[in-house]
Every structure is written in C-alpha cells, then in structure tokens.
C-alpha cells in the first residue's frame, strides 16, 4: 500500500523553514552548536539542506531533477540537486535518520538500504537515478509496534554497543537472509562483510542473523 504525498521542492539552500515546531534532536544539536558560535555560515539546519551551502550560494543554481520514488511504502516526488545521494535525501530531506553516514564512500555499510529488495549503499546512490524505485530503510522494517524479527534478534543477542552501524547491519542482514547466504556462521560473516562494526560485535551480529534465518 502506498500513500501519496504532495510534491516537495528543493528547499532554499540556507533553509530555515522547519515545519515542525517541536525541536528534534538534530535541530537541537544544530541550533545549540550555532548558538555556541561554531557554525557561522548559513545552512545550519541540516534537516532541510539538500545542496552544499557553499556551492549553492553561487549565483547559478546547480542543476536539479525531479524524481518519484517510494520510501517505506510512501510515494514521494521531489526535485533534488543532481548531486544529492539517496542517503542525504533520506536523512536531510525525508528526516529518516536511521540510515547512517559512516564513511560516505561505500566502505562501511552504515547507510545500507534495500532498493527494489536488494541491499545497496545509499551513500553511493544518486537520488536522481531512483525514478520508480522502492526503497526500504531501517524505519520501514517494523510492522507498527511489532519489530522485524531481525531487529528483535539484535536485542535478544545483544548485538550492538554504540549502535551506529546497527541500522545498516540490520538492513544488510535482512538482505543477506533473503539471499540465502546464511548456511553457516562463516557464510554469514563473508556475506555481511560489507558492514563494519568498530565496536567489534561481529560474533553477536552473526548470532542475530542466524537466529532470524533459522526461524524462516
């Protein structure tokens, strides 16, 4: 089922039009940092900045394109600066901050999302290329209050410490289970190697994937 959302346009580069009046953790951090005197340039409200503020402040508007895609069951149409990655679109525009920006270079897996059912690195995916694509992020895995079995397994197995890589691990794990590469702990390790965990929770991550794969 898909909900149609009205089109949103590229927000102004120095965007200050926070739609929600209640400050989120992100806007709170950004605002307090600005108040602290660290951020002096425009574009501090990360929630609405799509283009690089420095480059966008140039007289010429950078080339943009319109794209329609489905994110976690909701159809969205946006006009984005062509340079926008799917990861930035999700985090900065759709406020889906579950997918994390670790390396921003396809080397850590923290941004892993499913595109048309397959795991991809959102940081290396240009948003303009996703016409008609179906994207599932970690926010889209649970069924209401009912966690996805792999989310529950991460809790059961205590498979994280700092939690930064966890959304990517879980989405990647869902892809891994779907692909059927879960026949042994070694196979899971190999097929989950695109997700780095600097806390070193690999043993328990493998157990969580095993637990979930075993239930199917």
């Amino acid at each position, binding site marked *: 089922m898909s909900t149609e959302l009205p089109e949103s346009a590229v927000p102004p580069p120095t965007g200050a039009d926070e739609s929600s009046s209640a400050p989120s953790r992100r806007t709170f951090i950004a605002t307090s940092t600005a108040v602290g005197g660290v951020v002096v340039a425009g574009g501090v409200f990360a929630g609405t900045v799509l283009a690089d503020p420095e480059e966008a402040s140039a007289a010429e508007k950078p080339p943009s394109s319109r794209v329609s895609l489905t994110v976690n069951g909701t159809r969205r149409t946006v006009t984005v600066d062509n340079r926008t990655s799917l990861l930035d679109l999700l985090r900065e525009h759709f406020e889906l901050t579950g997918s994390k920006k670790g390396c921003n270079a396809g080397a850590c897996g923290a941004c892993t999302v499913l595109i048309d059912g397959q795991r*991809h690195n959102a940081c290396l995916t240009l948003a303009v290329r996703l016409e008609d694509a179906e994207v599932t992020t970690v926010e889209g895995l649970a069924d209401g209050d009912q966690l996805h079995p792999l989310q529950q397994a991460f809790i059961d197995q205590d498979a994280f410490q700092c939690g930064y890589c966890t959304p990517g691990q879980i989405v*990647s794990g869902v892809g891994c289970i779907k692909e059927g590469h879960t026949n042994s702990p070694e196979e899971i390790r190999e097929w989950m190697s695109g997700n780095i965990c600097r806390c070193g929770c690999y043993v328990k991550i493998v157990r969580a994937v095993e637990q979930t794969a075993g239930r199917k």
Partner: protein
Amino acid sequence: MHPFTYTRVSDTREALNAGRGGGRYIAGGTTLVDLMRETVEQPETLVDISGLPLREITVAEHGALRIGALVRMAEAAAHPKVRVLYPVISEALELSASAQLRNMATIGGNIMQRTRCTYFRDVTADCNKREPGSGCAALHGFNRSHAILGTSDHCVSTHPSDVAVAFAALEARVHLLGPDGERQVPFADFLLRPGSTPDREQALRRGELITAVEIPALPRPLKSGYLKVRDRQSYEFALTSAAVALHVRGGVIREARIAAGGVGTVPWKLPEVEQQLIGERPSESLWASAAAKAADGARALQHNRFKVELLKRTVERQLRIVGGTK
C-alpha cells in the same frame, strides 16, 4: 562534488549521441560517484545508461559466454552457467567488494573502475594519472599496495578489479559500440599500461560504449578458480591474486590460462607460466617450477618487495588447488 547535468537514456542510439557530445556514462556508479565526491572526477554531464538492454548472459556454441555490460556483479556471479562453465569468474566476483556493492556495480563498470592508489584519490597529491605532468607521489611514497609489473616512471598503480584478472586469463573480448559501429577488442589490448600516458586507461574511443564481455569457448573439461590474498579476509583489495584455468586430458595439461592480480598496472597475463605447463603432467614440482616464472620482469618498489615472492606462492598454490597432483 561539482554540479553536473543528468540525463537518462533508453536506447543505445540515444546513449551514443549523448556520449559523443562529451557526456559521461554512469552504470552502477560505485566508483564514479565516490570519485566525483572527492572531485577526482568532475563530469559535466552524466548519462545514465542503466536502462539500456545490456543485461543478459548468453551461452553460445561450445560454451562461449557473453556477459552483458550492465549485468550486475552479483547476477553474473550467481548465474548457473557462469558457475558451472567458469568458476574462476564467479569466484573472482564473489571475492570482490561487498554484497551491497556487487548488487550495484556492473561488469562493464567493473573493468572501467579506476585505481585505488591513495595518491590518485587525494587531489592534493602529485599524480600523473589524475593530472598529467604533475609527477607520481607513489613512486617514492607509501607504495606497499602498488604494482611490481607493467609500471613506468610515470605511474605504478594497480588495476583493482578481480574479475578483470579472470577475463585476462581467459582471453576475453570486449564488445564495443561507438558512433562508427561495433567492434571487438581483445582484453589484453583493452586496458592500457601507463607508459608515459597513465591518464589514458582504456582503448576506448570518444563516446564508445561497452556492450558485453565475451569469454571464448575453451576445450572441456576445464577446471578453473581464483585465489585472492589480502590484508583482511573479506572486503579488501588484493595484494596478490591468481586466476587459473586448466584443461587436462589423458593426464596431460593441454591448455592453461593464467593471470595475476594486485601486482600489475593492468591484470597480468602469465604466458611464460602457461608455456611451462603445456604438455606436462600435473605434479608438485611442476607447479613450483612454473610458478617460479610468475614474477619475471618484476620491478619492486621500496615497500612492496614482498609481492615478488608472494606472487609466486599465490600462483603455485592456485595451480595446486585447480590442478591437483594426479
């Protein structure tokens, strides 16, 4: 990242028009987007070719295999015919990158991928490949991962692909389509050694498009496989690697196709090793004596001398794995 215009094409004619006009083709984008973010690549126009009908794998007569340029790495690796006919290809693919990247990256893009040399990726460093004439920071810099074969004083970076090593071993042909029509280029001629023009990496003409990689038929039974040696067990580029394919009949090696990766500025075919094997019976001593030729002509740098011995041992081990001793 520098601003760029974006256009999506739906047929090859449209693609060639855009390519001829200076547009840069993008398929999986896993290398290109990364390098654009680092401003190593600064295309003004991206031509999205992912909608072109180049995503088929077909088996021709006698087991020749044609892999469409837009077949994803994961798809090629999992394809039943590829797994049965050329395990060396599926193994090389599955030992590459990560599951995520293999879902994104294409076969055509894989052989087009650019070096992982850290100086190439660092726009403040001297690099003849990125900025011709600026020098090579790797030559006397930190060059542990760099090439020992096919280097020049202008560039010592390796070609990072694994499957390209299998393609080189199997003497694949690259199918191209350009404004002047179709042509085929032997794999050995497709990727260029740096010489004095390391910025020129492929034998592509302006606007040309890779349409497929074709693996010629080889006599059967054929055993093949890929061995990759690296600093960590997974999700890492090769220090050394070996692609080996052997046709043994009547206890005698009739055909041998061997190439090495992680050591050359291009995937490194090893004809001398192949010659040592032809007409011989598999044995431990044969593997050792043939592999001893693997690093002939190597020119080691300050930090990668270990690769000379490691290469020979990698080839020897993979000959033993594929060829056995009977």
